[in-house]
Structures are given as structure tokens and as C-alpha cells.
């Protein structure tokens, strides 16, 4: 099987790191040169000393999954090895970068439908492949969809991906809490119910909105609030006149709260919206033309962020526009890269609940937002069953 053999060595001296192209948490991604083949690759350097034993196990699983995927729309790990305290993972170099990056650079208010259609279709093929193998990606978002200069689209970052078939058992569902809050399906947040590959379909729907607007819904709120609102509010919709009915319909199918009612990736691929997908030389023409190779995308982003922040503060905007801008600003600060600790959030929630004197507590904001008759405790019990039940008990005395 020539196509899956290891071609890239596990020898650090075969690689020359060139420039930094991404940075998040404990990992830095470099553009690199692989000497034996004269090839440009991307190398992710992960500081292992900053990972606890539990996440080391996840890193093993992720790396193994990545080295065993063979699909044109998935980023494969060509090689992985330890250098000092770092793990180096060698991957294909995708010169345009992530859709998030491309969007921030040239299309801050979202992409065109023709672009979105192609990108989403390619992403969906990757999800279909992963789901058929029993994997859940768990972190589908524009920031993890990479584009190459020839228009190839690949889903990356299996950082939190889980295998439903791990160790021989079909697990009914997973109940670990991972992902990035804005893209997270309601059932993932309600950790006690568990979830399956349909959680990716929700995130896929959110990603569609992200590509259409330049940011995902609720991106202006803090994580805890996103959590509560995703569970309580009606699912977000694509409402803009400029988009086609089939696009709106496709998004609505993904963003159904009951995971059982969401289509599988395979079924969704047959949706009429994707019938119109055009090849990248047509659909991504503009996006690819905007792209100029030699710059360091991280630096460019930082410059743009500071510019747009200045612009925003100097203008006096109407409320709707302001809402969008605020959302965008929060988004550009990098919610996409939030690392997210549910234990911490739960602890945070419990202190908020106990803190009666503080006006700016969770409750006061919640009551404003949800006048649907449910008590705050009721809502929180749904989200944080254990902690809140004990709280409710003690509150009775």
C-alpha cells in the first residue's frame, strides 16, 4: 500500500523549521522544509511537559488516528517523534491557512455562498469518512478547516476527536465535555445525556453560520453564558436575504436540538445545497486570488485585529451593527482558541449561584434573558446536575 506507507522520517535533523504559522495553547505550528524530499510541510510542536497524564493519552490517540487516515479532506500525520520535551507532528502544509484566517484577512463579514458551498461540502466528506469509522471530530469550526493554494480543503485538528469504537466496545455515547463553546451542540453541554457523531453535525451547522457571517452566533458572550443560551434558546438560523433557500434549509437541518433528528453526514451530502458545489478553481477563485504567499499569517492577523478594533471604537454605530461588531471583536480576540475546562466552569457556576449579593451574578442575567417560566435552579440543574442538586438541598435549610 504505497499510499499509506511512511515516507517522512522520524529524524528531527531532516526537518528545518522556517517560520511560525500558528500558535495556540501549548502548541506552535511552523512551516518547515523536509530535506530528503525538498518538500514544504507543516510541523506542529507540542510542549509535552505542559500536558497532564490524561491528555498524554489523548495525544497518543490523536496522533495514531491522524497517521491512519487516508482521505483527501483530512489532514494526515506524515510522521511524529519526540524532540527534547516536544512532540513534533509532521503534516501537509496548507498555504492559505484556515478558513478563519482567510476570512479575517479578506472577508471579515463572511464568505460568498459559492465559496461556502464548496468548503462545506469538502468538510462534510471528511466528517462522513470519520463517522463511518466510528470517530467523532468534536471540534468542527472554520479555524480547523484548512485550504491549500490549489483549493484543496482539509479538516484538521483531531485534538479532541474521540473514537466511539475505542477498545472494541461500541460505546452508546461519549460523555466527556470537549470542544469550543460556540460550536458545541446542546447535548454535549448537558454532559449527563451523552452524545454521538450527531454533535459534529450541529458544529457543522454553526460553522456554516460562521462562514456566512464572519463569526459564529453568541460569540460575544462569555463561555458560561454561551453554554446556558445554547441549551435554553431556540437554535440559531440563517436569515439573510442574500443566501439561497436551500442553504438556509441545510443549516436548519443541522441545527435541530434533538440530535436524533439531525441528518447523518452521508445523508446531508445528498442535500440539494451541495448539488450546486463548483470546483475550487471557480468557487474559490476570489479567495485564492486574495492570498499572497510569503507572509506570516499570524503577524498579519494581529495587525488587522488592532486596526479593526480602532475603527470600531471610533465609530458610533446603530445597535444592530454594533451587536455584530461587538460579536466580531470578541471573536477576533480568539474565542476559537479557547481552551475550555468544564470543571472550572462548573466551579464558576456554583460560586455564581451561591453569591446572592452580587447583582451581576448569573441569575440576574439569566432571568433577563429567559422569561420562559423556568427557574434559574431548574436550568442549572439541567446543566450541572450534581453540583446544583447539592446546592438546592442546602438551600432548603
Amino acid at each position, binding site marked *: *500500500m504505497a*499510499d*499509506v*506507507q*511512511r515516507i517522512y522520517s*522520524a*529524524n528531527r535533523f531532516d526537518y528545518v523549521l522556517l517560520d511560525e504559522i500558528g500558535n495556540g495553547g501549548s502548541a506552535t505550528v511552523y512551516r518547515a522544509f523536509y530535506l530528503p524530499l525538498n518538500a514544504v510541510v507543516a510541523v506542529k510542536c507540542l510542549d*509535552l*511537559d505542559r500536558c*497532564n*497524564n490524561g491528555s*498524554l*493519552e489523548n495525544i*497518543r490517540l490523536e*496522533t*495514531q488516528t491522524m*497517521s*491512519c487516515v*487516508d482521505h483527501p479532506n483530512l489532514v494526515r*500525520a506524515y*510522521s*511524529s*517523534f*519526540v524532540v*527534547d*520535551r516536544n*512532540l513534533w507532528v509532521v503534516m501537509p502544509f496548507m498555504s492559505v491557512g484556515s478558513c478563519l484566517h482567510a476570512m479575517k484577512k479578506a472577508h471579515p463579514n463572511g464568505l460568498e455562498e459559492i465559496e461556502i458551498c464548496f468548503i462545506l461540502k469538502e468538510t462534510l466528506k471528511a466528517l462522513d469518512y470519520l*463517522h*463511518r*469509522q*466510528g470517530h467523532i471530530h468534536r471540534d468542527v469550526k472554520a479555524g480547523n478547516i484548512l485550504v491549500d493554494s490549489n483549493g484543496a480543503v482539509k479538516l484538521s485538528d483531531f485534538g479532541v476527536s474521540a473514537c466511539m*469504537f475505542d*477498545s*472494541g*466496545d*461500541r460505546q452508546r455515547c461519549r460523555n466527556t465535555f470537549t470542544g469550543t463553546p460556540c460550536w458545541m451542540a446542546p447535548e454535549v453541554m448537558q454532559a449527563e445525556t451523552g452524545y*454521538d*457523531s450527531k454533535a459534529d453535525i450541529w458544529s457543522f451547522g454553526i460553522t456554516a453560520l460562521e462562514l456566512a457571517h464572519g463569526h459564529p452566533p453568541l460569540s460575544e458572550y462569555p463561555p458560561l453564558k454561551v453554554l446556558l443560551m445554547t441549551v435554553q434558546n431556540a437554535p440559531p438560523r440563517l436569515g439573510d436575504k442574500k443566501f439561497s433557500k436551500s442553504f438556509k434549509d441545510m443549516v436548519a437541518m443541522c441545527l435541530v436540538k434533538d440530535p436524533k433528528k439531525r441528518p*447523518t453526514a*452521508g445523508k446531508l451530502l445528498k442535500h440539494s445545497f451541495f448539488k450546486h458545489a463548483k470546483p475550487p478553481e471557480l468557487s474559490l477563485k476570489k479567495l485564492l486570488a486574495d492570498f499572497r504567499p510569503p507572509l506570516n499569517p499570524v503577524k498579519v492577523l494581529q495587525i488587522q485585529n488592532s486596526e479593526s478594533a480602532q475603527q470600531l471604537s471610533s465609530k458610533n454605530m446603530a445597535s444592530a451593527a454594533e451587536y455584530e461588531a461587538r460579536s466580531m471583536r470578541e471573536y477576533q480576540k480568539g474565542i476559537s482558541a479557547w481552551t475550555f475546562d468544564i470543571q472550572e466552569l462548573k466551579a464558576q457556576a456554583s460560586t455564581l449561584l451561591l453569591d446572592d449579593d452580587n447583582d451581576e451574578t448569573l441569575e440576574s442575567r439569566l432571568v433577563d434573558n429567559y422569561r420562559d417560566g423556568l427557574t434559574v435552579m431548574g436550568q442549572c440543574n439541567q446543566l450541572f446536575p450534581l453540583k446544583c442538586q447539592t446546592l438546592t438541598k442546602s438551600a432548603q435549610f
Partner: protein
Amino acid sequence: MKGLFKSKPRTPVDIVRQTRDLLIYAGRSSDSREAKREEKMAELFKNIRELKCILYGNSESEPVSEACAQLTHEFFRENTLRLLITCLPKLNLEARKDATQVVANLQRQQVNSRLIASDYLEANLDLMDILIAGYENTDMALHYGAMLRECIRHQTVARYVLESQHMKKFFDYIQLPNFDIAADAAATFKELLTRHKSTVAEFLSKNYDWFFAEYNSKLLESTNYITRRQAVKLLGDILLDRSNSAVMTRYVSSRDNLRILMNLLRESSKSIQIEAFHVFKLFAANQNKPADIVSILVANKSKLLRLFADFKTDKEDEQFEADKAQVVKEIASLELRDRLERNAKQGPFEHHVEW
């Protein structure tokens, strides 16, 4: 007329039989035409995927236990597992992954409330030789490794591997250059040394000398960060397990072992330091410390106490703090006791280990 040409849906037993025939075909040297072979291989891959779907279900349906039992019975009635394992290199990547998941699942299937996979493997233990050697083949390592880890869930199989000559090879496999493969070998190694308590305890007492000599020199003193870190963590797990108390007592009575652990305690890596502490504390807490252990601790007392003074975990950990307090107390009280004993014995005071 229509019904006449419609083929009956194949039963799980049919699919296993057909898979077996195709595996026998695939195993033969390719004398047939290329096109025909390709067709047969495609059919084989399809069959293996169908087996997987029966065992795991798919996004539309859950697995049916009756069908799983029939499949498992037929699979182990003949030599299908051996065929599948030996033919694995001839399959494509997707079929290899499917086959691996099938083999993993079969280890847990019960037929008439018996794990018949265990009975089969007991009579075919040499299959483990193939799976373990898989670590030396970068293209097969992850598939064979995953199968191996599932097979050693059966105690007899784990015992066979522990007592085999293969056990020595793991010390090299854990340090292979490819991280995904080395980490897989490490996961298997850990499983072998932690899952079946009584078997592990027996293995360790019988093989104490060579095993810990290798463990110390190849793993704990490895130049590879991740090898050292995982090895010291696993050592803690092994020694702190109640079933291994005899081995623990022996390990913490050796000054060479103490020297290695004290070096790990000094590493600049926080993670390694913390794991090393969990082993070091056993040396300190041992109520029957041999004289040479005591003298090393005494000789390095002030350095140790200084180290522990600002030794903290990232997140607050009550157990760790309690352990640390006890270790500090123990070491602080040592000199006095040591001096009294030396006076009583009038023995010379030596401390070869300068830390």
C-alpha cells in the same frame, strides 16, 4: 419471476465463511490474473466491513446480540483469526482498520456466557508472537498493537506474553523513533504490568533482577523525555499496588534505585519531578530502611528539604501535600536516629551518593 433472482440476505455465518474463503485466497501466492485478484480483494474488504457493521452497528442501527453470537461462534469454530492476522499486510489501510476493530470486538463477545475468544487464543498462543513482532514493522505496528492490547485482556494470554522472551523487546519498542508506535508499545507494556494483578505480582517476583535492571537503565535513565516520564509514572503505579507489596519492599531497599529516583527528582521537568516524588516517598516512608538508604538520605538531607520547601503541584492537591509533609517529617527526624544507631553499632558512616 422477480423473487427468483433476488438473493437471500446473507447470514452472519455466511459472511464469516465467505471471509474465510477469501482470506485463504488472499494468502496464496498470486497465480491468478491481476484483475481477478483485485476483484476478490475488494470483495474481501467488503466482507470485513460487513463483519464490523454487525458487531458495532452503524449510525442507523444498534448491534443485535444474537447476530453477534452467531458471528463469533463461526469465527472461532475454525481458524479465521489466524488467517485474518497473517493476511493483514495484504489488506489496504481501511480494511486493516476494520479488521482491527473486528478482532478487538470479538475479544468481548460471549457465546453461551463464555468468552470463546479466550479459549481459542489459549490454543493458539503463537499468534501473539506475530502481533508483538508487528512493532518492528512501521506499517503494521498500530494495527497489530491494537489487536494485541485487546488479546491480553485475557489473563492466560497476558501470562504467556509476560513469560515469553518478547517481554525484553518491549524495552526497545517503547523507544522506537516514531512516536505513535512507541506510545502504542508503551500502552501495551502498561496494560501487561497492571491489568491482571496476581499474574503481574508473580511475574515481577520471579523476574525481579533482570526486569528492574532493564527498567532502570533503559527506561528511567533513557535520554528520551517521554520514555522517562511514562516509566516513572508506571513504576509508581506498580509499586503502589497492594498486590505488589513484596516487590515494592525489595525495590525501595536498594540504594541504586534510590539514586536513580533522586536524579529524577532533580529534573527540570515538573511532571517528571512529581511522578518521581510518588516513588521517592516510598523509600522515605519505609519503616525498615536499610542503613545505606538512611545514610544517603541523611547525607542529602538539607538539599532534599530545600527542594521540598518549594515543591508544589500546579493544581492544589491535598493528598500530595499530606504525603510531602510526611516525607519531610521523616527525613528531618532521620539524623538523630541514624546517629543513635551508629553510636550503638560503632559502625563507620559512609555515603557514597553525593546528590
